[in-house]
């Protein structure tokens, strides 16, 4: 299936993409499989979203889908149906501070 992924501005610059990206996922669409597919398609993003070795999410990076926060979910958590069908994107966001 094709998953739509929206990257934060700095990662779009890094990956040299203008808009949302589409990645192909085989099997279940989970946080892990989508991030694996994203890093396979854009190797420059390795290490910028999660640790190279432990695969732990970087502290100031957050994951959202269908207005729900998936940041603290298990990497094997399934993403919502609307993300699997392409109706909604999977969002990767840099944490913001007010002020």
């Amino acid at each position, binding site marked *: 299936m094709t998953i739509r992924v929206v990257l*934060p501005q700095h990662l779009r610059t890094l990956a040299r993409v203008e808009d949302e990206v589409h990645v192909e996922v085989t099997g279940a669409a989970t946080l892990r499989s989508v991030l694996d597919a994203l890093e396979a398609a854009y190797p*420059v993003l390795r290490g*910028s979203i999660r640790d190279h070795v432990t695969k732990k999410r*970087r502290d100031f*990076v957050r994951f959202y889908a269908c207005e729900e926060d998936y940041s603290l979910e298990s990497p094997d958590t399934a993403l919502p149906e609307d993300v699997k069908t392409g109706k909604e994107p999977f969002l990767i966001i840099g*944490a913001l501070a007010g002020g």
Partner: protein
Amino acid sequence: MSGVRVLVGTKKGAFVLTADGTRKTWDVTGPHFGGWEMYHLKGSPAEPNRVYASQTSGWFGQQIQRSDDGGKTWEAAGNEFTYDGVPGTHQWYDGTAHPWEFARVWHLEPSLTDPDTIYAGVEDAALFRSTDGGKTWQEMSGLRKHGTGPAWQPGAGGLCLHTIILDPRNDQRIFVAISAAGAFRSDDGGENWKPINNGLRSEYIPNPTAEVGHCVHRIAMHPSRPNVLFMQKHWDVLRTDDAGDNWREVSGNLPSDFGFPIAVHAHEPETIYVVPIKSDSEHYPPDAKLRVYRSRTGGEDWEALTKGLPQENCYVNILRDAMSIDTLDPCGIYFGTTGGQVYGSADGGDSWAPIVRDLPAVLSVEAQVI
């Protein structure tokens, strides 16, 4: 005629400044990697158009960028910096044990002879090396594991390895400096290391003459005399004439001996430059006057260089990697400020002019002759 390229890293991107040998008119390009912190850029002495850059972000981590056309275009290189083995702990600010964690690359030092070999000084303090043009990195863990590592403690800016000096006459000898651990030397290509801090005195640590724990801010060497090193410490300017075995203070008549960068003239090994800063709690110039101080005697006797620099209401800082020289004759000197100015002198420091003055805060400046 030769030209000059000045690579500028700032809090919000990198800039490339170029001029012909007269160094009167400058072309400014950038920002490259706009919005990212560009800690350091440096070109290969063996192939000046090969430039490496440390791109970092508190959100998105570390990237290493590589250019083969002098900074016009860039390709991402490898960014996996994994400590060798179980990293262990160093001391935290409060003296408790703290696990070694990679944060960023502070300084990149290309090999003097091989464009594909490059050293990286990182936070938490360690030395890495790549021999494939930055694709992969291996820790030279003999430094961190030589014995004093668990006693190292971060300075205010973090536990960072910020200075790497390769001996041009002895390819087995490497000097590094770490805030706030001190200076270290390897005589076998980076396998084994020893602290070289004898003669340093730091009143702000429990034992002022301890083997490690000194907040060294920068070390500089003239390539014709690799056993002579000059150091700007947290407080004090020092020199050694025996490759770091013994240091002596040469602060002399400086208005303040606190500061960050130190540089050596390209053609006069006893001519050195510092930028005094008022104190460790007031990071701006004494009397609000931006003055570079030059010693033509290897320290002790210093003269203020002020022509073209602001002499009132100046409250900028000059960070440790933000001063560099070129090798033209007369020698060019450049430095960048936290206020976004990059000043240049084409006459050994006698007179100065801003090359650019409204960049983001400058983190690093490196000059190349091209």
